[in-house]
């Protein structure tokens, strides 16, 4: 390779990385102000107290698609039903599961099919029926189960849920997610406090892999002790506590996670709902909502709240991580193909002028540039023309910067008050941060590039199942309950045993 290529590339890399670092510093400072504001003014108890006694508190619906989730569905639905909020409903969409998801739901919550006047506000695969409980249990009355033909994507199932929700705001989550008891209060408050219309709210999500969950409720939070979920936990925390919080401060949020986010139902329907063909349906949805608001000249806000409201199970192995990252990579590529007209478009305000160019330059192209960097280094190594002094300075600088970012997110996490049970748990984050540049990051670059290549070649991709290992349950709960039971048969057996025990007690009481 001619020398000017190396020189040109090295100058480009220095400029590029300086810009990346500058953006991170800007984000860190913006996030600092946002955290300070939140820390000073937000008080969970106060908010809950005000909302609990007010007749003006808006209702919230929770939409959770379920596809072949028989292992965890009952525990998780119970967890959703036990949330604390004056007016909420839980809509579970059975997306044509091939296992016993629907049967277990019917059996455990006394469901019956009801004649519901279903209106397809957003087009989905055919609706098969709607189930409501006949039980007198007041919490079960909040549950609605929608049964539909499998659409192959989470987007299609979510759209079916949106079609039946009755509240102004709905939360879209996954059935395997564990929500914080006060999540709904935290999510609804920004919509009420803003002077502009809040179209979506995002909250911090963390990995549930190392946590202890009892009856679907979070008891103790710990970092995952498996490397891949640990890396992902670090990545999520960094993204939510620095990136998204900073972007939220200037109303330039790029995405509301598909795992847990609240949306304005009316805007979602007007924007056409989730796109079933998209691999990044959450990001695409937010883009279309913003497009709708900007095109109709309305003021809007997309908000990120720093508190952890949701825990989800991270990919347990490289196979699942590969699938996830490839999908994200494809999704990002596809997103810019579909919404290219929004980039550098002043009509779309901060989103068009700042967020999308930033993602395009620093997220979409980053894996390509990094990959080229690896090739350059290897090529220079082969020629033995490498300047070790320069490499050493650059690498050390970047490495220390990455470690400082980790220190920053740990300090933000402690500040926000959603820290782990033990402070020593943060050592896992430090370990992950030390290893990430050598182990996790290069692999992710490779997976993302695979996603790009597949998208360019137009290879068909199937949404694989997320392999669930199940989260840890508290020791005392393991015997009679369902939490943490990863085996469907044992879950069913424990349900049966609990039921028989209850029946026996009732018989004794009657006698």
């Amino acid at each position, binding site marked *: 390779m001619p020398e000017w290529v190396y020189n040109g590339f090295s100058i480009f890399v*220095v400029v590029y990385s300086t810009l990346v*670092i500058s953006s991170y510093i800007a984000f860190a400072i913006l996030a600092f102000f946002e955290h300070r504001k939140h820390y000073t003014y937000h008080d969970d108890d106060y908010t809950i107290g*005000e909302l609990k006694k007010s007749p*003006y508190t808006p209702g919230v619906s929770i939409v959770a698609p379920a596809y072949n989730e028989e292992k965890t569905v009952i525990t998780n639905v119970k967890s959703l039903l036990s949330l604390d909020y004056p007016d909420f409903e839980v809509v579970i969409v059975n997306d044509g599961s091939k296992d016993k998801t629907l049967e277990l739901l019917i059996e455990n919550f006394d469901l*019956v099919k009801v004649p*519901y006047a279903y209106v397809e506000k957003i087009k989905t695969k055919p609706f098969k029926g709607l189930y409501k409980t006949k039980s007198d249990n007041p919490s079960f009355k909040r549950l609605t189960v929608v049964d539909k033909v499998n659409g192959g994507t989470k987007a299609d199932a979510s759209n079916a849920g949106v079609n039946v*929700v009755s509240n102004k705001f709905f939360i879209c989550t996954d059935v395997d997610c564990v929500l914080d008891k006060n999540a709904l209060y935290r999510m609804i408050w920004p919509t009420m406090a*803003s002077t502009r219309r809040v179209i979506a709210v995002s909250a911090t999500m963390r990995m549930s892999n190392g946590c202890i969950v009892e009856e679907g409720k979070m008891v103790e939070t710990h970092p995952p002790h498996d490397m891949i979920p640990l890396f992902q936990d670090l990545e999520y925390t960094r993204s939510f506590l620095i990136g998204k919080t900073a972007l939220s401060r200037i109303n330039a949020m790029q995405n509301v996670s598909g795992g847990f986010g609240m949306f304005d139902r009316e805007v979602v329907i007007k924007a056409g709902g989730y796109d079933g063909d998209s691999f990044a349906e959450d990001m695409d949805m937010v883009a279309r909502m913003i497009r709708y608001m900007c095109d109709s000249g309305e003021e809007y806000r997309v908000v990120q709240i720093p508190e952890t409201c949701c825990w989800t199970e991270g990919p347990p192995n490289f196979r699942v991580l590969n699938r996830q990252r490839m999908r994200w990579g494809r999704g990002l590529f596809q997103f810019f193909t579909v919404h290219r007209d929004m980039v550098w478009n002043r009509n779309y305000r901060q989103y068009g002028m700042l967020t999308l160019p930033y993602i395009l330059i620093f997220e979409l192209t980053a894996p390509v540039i990094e990959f080229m960097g690896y090739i350059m280094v290897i090529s220079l190594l082969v020629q033995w023309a490498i300047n070790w002094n320069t490499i050493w300075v650059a690498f050390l600088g970047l490495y220390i910067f990455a470690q400082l970012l980790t220190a920053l997110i740990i300090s933000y996490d*402690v500040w926000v008050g959603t820290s782990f049970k033990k402070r020593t748990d943060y050592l896992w984050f430090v370990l992950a941060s030390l290893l990430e540049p050598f182990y996790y990051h290069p692999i992710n670059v490779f997976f993302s590039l695979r996603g790009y290549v597949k998208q360019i070649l137009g290879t068909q991709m199937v949404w694989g199942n997320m392999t669930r290992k199940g989260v840890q349950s508290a020791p005392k709960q393991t015997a009679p309950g369902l939490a943490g039971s990863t085996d469907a048969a044992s879950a069913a057996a424990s349900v049966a045993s609990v039921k028989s025990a209850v029946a026996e007690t009732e018989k004794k009481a009657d006698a």
Partner: protein
Amino acid sequence: MEYYVLSRYAYWKYYLLILYYRLAEYPPVVRVWAVFSTISMILLIAIVIGNMVRSVRTAADSYAIAHNREKYWEKIKEVALSVRVWEPLEISALLELPKNFKMHERSHRRYVPMLIDMYRQYGPQMNKINWQRVLQVLKMPIYFEEQVRSRNTRKRIVAFKNVADMDANLKEAVASRYLFTKDRKLQNNARLHAARFGTSYPFKVLLEDPNLVFTDELVVKFHNVLMYRQENGMSMPNFIHWCNRTPLNEELRIFAINEIRLFNRREDCAEMLSMLINSRDERFSCALIKALGAMEYVPAEKEFIRRYLSASYAERQELAEALGAINSGNPEVLHFLEEDFMQTTDYVTRMMLLRVIHDYGKLGLKAYNRLKKESPREFSIYFEHIECDLIDSRKYA
């Protein structure tokens, strides 16, 4: 050998010179990068250290708060819940406070969470005089006054919030200076404080501010303040007066109408009806219709019927709901509801009409059954939906 003590700026210069000469052999981009990364790392380190210091302080505060709770909780609870009125000296003796008790700002701050928790837990059962005396003995009103007078806006806001949270006593005049301040958060907190504790006409500020932004958060908070005033037997505002006085702010007018409904002020119905006749704004009309319907004001029925066919879908839904709530047994009402059921193209309105007809007494049930027979087959799902007891058909959107 002489040693020179460098000034703090000289240290920086010295470091940058070292950086310059050390990196002189590198290309310019590397030198720029090195300087940049130094600055960025210093920035990051500053934030991290700041956060760590804050965390340590918070931990110390938590420890002190727990200590205070252990020491005073039971004693304060005993005084606050006692029927007998305690003298300040008695309280002071019980709490084992010195004669000239004085606290540092930080120590005061460490009492606040405990007192808020206690008020939240036992507020309704408390002997109000004793509670105020406890706060007085702990010098809370003076502390809050200092906080509100401080230069730090965040301190002022937090102080207002804490005063409301523990029902402390803060002079009205202290809050009044912030009623029209530029900082909206401070302004709102001062206004809420004035509304909660004000003795003259505390809601005047809302009516006099042309730039008022009445968010849903304020709706919730002001309603709770009004509830507090009602529970404590304090004077309540004239909501209908708000509507007449504030043509500038639509949100506040809607809030006033909703409050009339929630506080069931039937005496305002006649005036609300005349407002409805003159109203052109859809949201305001909907609020009026909802309020008149909820209070079952029969004379409004005629106006409802007059408005119905020229109304938007949102207003029609409110009208149908209100007519159903009044349920006067008027066959004319049923007649046009039936007609609209067959004609409307909006499915939510159709469902609502059907539900109102179904719930409209015996006459309604008869009309419902007739409609069931006469309606096209594709409408059968609506009838089944309404008849199903397991579905809450009021929540259909």
